[in-house]
């Protein structure tokens, strides 16, 4: 297993200059942070960074796959908001509801993603427009369900966000495991390889008779599933879900993907770059915090990173 993982990592590093660049930036930022602040060097702070990055990591994983096919999912923010509000609203403090609600939310996330995929296949409309539309509808639905924070979660539920194994947050461990599994899937499994094929040359993939519909359904279904994971994690972390929990994730989920070297035009990139991109962004915000730089400037820094990243990786000419 471990040789498989390292072989896969080696291959994805060779194919993805983004991984090297982001890794170098990550190390540089770690050194910089360690130099400027004693408090930065503490184990607690590192765990803190890992904890803060978990929600973003989970949704960015799903987003990576949709972008690899040359698509995008702009409905992730509303999906997270809806699922998070439903999670706390349905559990509503009743510990016996935790298990059935979690199962239901994961299924619902999957179904929402599959609906996106089906609409993209049937309507032949660009994923950007389809998911913009479904995202808008979902935002309306969650506001119909509740205009503010809904319900509450019992004490035990927050364990999902704050529980630790050997001192490491459970969420952070889960992130590494699921990224590794998806990395293996898209590197070694036939359906996973088709994701790259569809993203690289959609028309060519169709001519070769690849199961394009199956690929689209897989990536959007999985993206919806990732939204459900994010929603459950965020609900556990904040103790309650509200109709704007996911608002910012629609666009911020794209940032680590492109920073990690996955091209918006599809066909190139991978999940390792995305994970490093997530860590880089969380680390950057953390370092800026230690430098007492306000969140306003953190926003500017994030925008500049996107510009820098997309300027380094030159994309083939694309339409959107």
């Amino acid at each position, binding site marked *: 297993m471990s040789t498989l993982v390292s072989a896969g990592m080696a291959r994805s590093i060779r194919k993805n200059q983004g991984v090297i660049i982001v890794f170098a930036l990550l190390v540089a930022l770690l050194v910089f942070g360690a130099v400027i602040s004693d408090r930065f060097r503490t184990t607690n702070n590192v765990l803190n960074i890992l904890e803060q990055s978990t929600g973003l990591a989970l949704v960015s994983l799903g987003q990576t796959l949709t972008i690899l096919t040359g698509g995008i999912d702009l409905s992730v923010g509303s999906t997270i908001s809806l699922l998070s509000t439903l999670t706390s609203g349905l559990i509503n403090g009743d510990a016996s509801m935790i298990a059935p609600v979690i199962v239901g939310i994961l299924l619902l996330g999957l179904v929402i993603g599959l609906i996106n995929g089906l609409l993209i296949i049937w309507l*032949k409309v660009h994923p950007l427009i389809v998911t913009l539309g479904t995202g*808008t509808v979902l935002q309306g639905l969650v506001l119909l369900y509740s205009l503010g924070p809904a319900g509450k979660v019992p004490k035990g539920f927050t364990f999902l966000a704050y529980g630790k194994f050997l001192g490491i947050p459970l969420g952070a461990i889960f992130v590494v495991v699921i990224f590794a599994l998806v990395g293996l899937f898209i590197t070694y499994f036939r359906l996973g390889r088709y994701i790259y094929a569809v993203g690289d040359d959609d028309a060519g993939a169709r001519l070769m008779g690849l199961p394009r519909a199956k690929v689209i359904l897989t990536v959007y279904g999985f993206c919806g599933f990732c939204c459900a994971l994010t929603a459950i994690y965020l609900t556990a972390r904040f103790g309650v879900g509200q109709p704007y929990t996911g608002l910012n994730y629609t666009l911020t989920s794209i940032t680590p993907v492109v920073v990690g070297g996955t091209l918006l035009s599809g066909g190139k990139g991978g999940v390792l770059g995305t994970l490093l991109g997530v860590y880089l962004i969380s680390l950057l915000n953390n370092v800026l915090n230690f430098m007492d730089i306000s969140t306003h*400037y953190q*926003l500017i820094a994030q925008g500049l990173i996107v510009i820098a990243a997309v300027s380094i990786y030159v994309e083939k000419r*694309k339409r*959107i």
Partner: protein
Amino acid sequence: MVDLSHAKSAELTGPTAGIAGRLAPYALPIFLVLMIIVAGIISPAFLSANNISNMLLQAAPLGIVVIGQAFVIILRGLDLSVSSVMATAAVIATGFSGQNADVVPILLIAVGIGVATGLVNGLLVTKRSVSPFLATLATMIVLQGIRFAYTQGAPSGNVPPFFRTLGSATWYGIPYNLMLLVVLGVIFWILLAKSRFGREVYITGGNPTTARLLGINADRVTIIGYIISGGLAAIAGLVLSGYVGIVDNWVGRGFELDSIVAAVMGGISLAGGRGGIVGGLFGAAVLIVVFNAVLLFGLPVQFQIIIKGIVIVAAAAFYVRRTQ
């Protein structure tokens, strides 16, 4: 991102013949008229002079943004930074002195910011081959950060009376901002539909390779397109700040998506090279009528959002089928 070849390579349907075929290009105006009639029957208040005047007031800022968005989308791009440009322009308009004497510098600075943003967008898209989605997303975030850093999160000041009048007053029931929209609409319609530059926009958007073979400077055309979008967004921001009348860091929030939706509904294809300003403005009108009708029918505001989402997908699906 994905190229839209799957839309084109799908099985061809025969040319739609007969009345339906001939009416298809006018689908949106017909739909708009039908909607107005139905809304008027269900709720007579919909057709009151007051309500119509109100809808026109709301339509103008969106319409102005859609004009700019039309150029960018015809050039195979899209501009997500318009809402950020609008809010920044509005914050400047209010953060200055609130005096009429400062209208000219406010206008110059606001449009300057819009033009500069458009220039950065255009340069990123052409010279660095950044996808328009990411380029304009990044400038949107940066501009938002600059705005918040400048106002420290709490903008202050007053909207100068000139912009109050422009944004919210009417002349015998006709809003001043609608007059501005008409003037801008005519100017940019001539530029896009009748000028040499307009033809270059369509050729570049339709097929960049053809454009290069014809000796068109595609990069220059594209950059100008983004500059037009940025400049018009700044003007729309000033107009909207006059309509809202208060200081707000989020003036124009949602306009980036609404303007794209209006353009797509108006037949401007995200694949580039197709559509026009008139269609885009009809798209904006349909959106405004839908929003207004939902409220007038006493439906919860959430239905505005839900209906908007359905309309986006349905309109896009309609045009994909028509252009096959």
